[in-house]
């Protein structure tokens, strides 16, 4: 937006909304909305508590394991689906189904299969993240330009060389985009897993704070999570842009 001939960056409106929040909080309209300043204070306090630190560690660990699994499984499966027709036909239905299925309904089943601990949360993260990674990897591989593949063939490249030197590299931007969306979904998965499954990590803290109506800490925790999700996505996006040819492909 431009105001008085000057461009105002878009994200500055968040400052405006935080101000509105502060005022609403100060007016004590709702106990749910404490002033931002006290949320920040609670947040500074929160990060020093042992319970937050251990919850963060647990959450982070579940997230990293789940994501690693999603990438390790998702990328190869997507690549295979993109290259092998039969595999695509067999898995296509399920991948397309689960990418938009209400996985939150599946979590109760995961709990009784994988236990009430971290494993279930890891599996939840995996399930939230993996499908989009598969789909994007598949799309990337299928979009590898025919002419690049023919170019490789015409210069005598073996199938394997074409696969590694041309197809995979062509697919890299899509694969990364899939991972970025997968990361965001993974964050949602780790939270949903923790609050549905078992009272571990952030799930426990959320439950604790909301039961004791400790809104300052509740919001502080929420905002820390939101910020982490945004930072994560911005981080991958930055990495995507650093791949020199990205601009050329897009």
């Amino acid at each position, binding site marked *: 937006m431009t105001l008085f001939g000057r461009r105002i960056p878009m994200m500055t409106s968040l400052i405006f909304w935080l101000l509105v929040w502060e005022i609403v909080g100060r007016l004590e309209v709702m106990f749910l909305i404490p002033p931002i300043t006290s949320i920040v204070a609670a947040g500074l306090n929160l990060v020093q508590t042992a*319970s937050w630190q251990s919850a963060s560690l647990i959450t982070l660990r579940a997230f990293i394991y789940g994501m690693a699994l999603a990438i390790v499984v998702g990328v190869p499966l997507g690549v295979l689906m993109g290259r092998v027709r039969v595999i695509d036909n067999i898995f296509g239905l399920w991948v397309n189904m689960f990418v938009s299925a209400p996985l939150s309904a599946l979590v109760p089943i995961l*709990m*009784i299969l994988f*236990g*009430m*601990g971290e494993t279930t949360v890891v599996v939840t993260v995996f399930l939230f993240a993996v499908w989009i990674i598969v789909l994007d990897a598949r799309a990337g591989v299928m979009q590898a330009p025919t002419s690049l593949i023919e170019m490789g063939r015409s210069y005598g490249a073996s199938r394997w060389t074409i696969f590694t030197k041309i197809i995979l590299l062509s697919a890299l931007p899509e694969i990364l985009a899939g991972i970025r969306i997968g990361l965001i979904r993974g964050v949602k998965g780790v939270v949903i897993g923790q609050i549905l499954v078992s*009272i*571990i990590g952030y799930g426990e803290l959320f439950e604790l704070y909301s*039961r004791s109506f400790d809104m300052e800490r509740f919001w502080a925790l929420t905002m820390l999570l939101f910020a982490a999700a945004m930072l994560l996505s911005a981080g991958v996006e930055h990495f995507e842009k650093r791949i020199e040819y990205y601009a050329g492909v897009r």
Partner: protein
Amino acid sequence: DPMRVAFGDIATVESLHLLAAFERAREKGVDVQVTFLKSEDIAAQAVVSGQADIGVGAPYALLQKVKAPIRIFMQLSKLQFYPVVNTEFYKNWKDLDGQEIAVHSRGSGTEAIMQLMAEKNGISYSSISYVPGAEVRTGALLQGNVKATIVDSSGKRVLEDKAPGKFAFLPMGDVSATDEALFANTDYLSANAKDVEILVEAILTTWREVAADPKSVTALKEKYKLLPDATPEMVADIEPYFAESAPNMPLNGGGGAAAKDDLEFYTVSGALEGDAKDLKVEDFWDLSALNNVLSRIGTK
């Protein structure tokens, strides 16, 4: 091996005495590890699937259905619930005929009580909605989202405190049934008899101490550094809570008598299928550990 306990709730003031008892068992060399889970039913699943050794709750319906040999081995508390109505709408049990009520969850003790009361008073509800968490139901009552439900003792205190006279607590007569108990797989109980007895003894002695002096819980909290993140309001809540619940604490771990009461209560409420007479206590309880401990420390 550690003794893995699945607790179907987060740690609050109301479980301080149990936490203290776990600490004592630990002092005696039992490596108790507690996992706090979202709900009792999940805790029960954990025991069934072998992810936990001991669960906390009263999963009678599960015990009857599931193939795994799970047995209750001691009672921790009895149902201490208070049917409550908003006096703007209802005054007594008869008023609830054909009305909607809210209870904790399907098959829970709270539903059992309400069904039992309906039967005793010759009424039936139009529908039952499930609202887990006594404090949630308390809040819902205060906000007017629910007009008739059943709450726990701290909910009762909150209601009396925040809206004196607005709510009426309906008479229940004589109901005695387990609210929370400890249960485990029979294999576990026989293989770890010594540890289980240490745990039972630690709980019974703690219970007896608390019953004798409800204020001692605060000291226990300090001693074992329990609930380190508790807010001042929570701490202030400790004494009144235990003062109120002390008289009702089972000091002998329930045992056969409690089991019989439960079978009767839960068949009437519909959580258990069949006739109470035909159900055998041995299919639900394993009394050996409790009896061994009681023979050592005596009954009260």
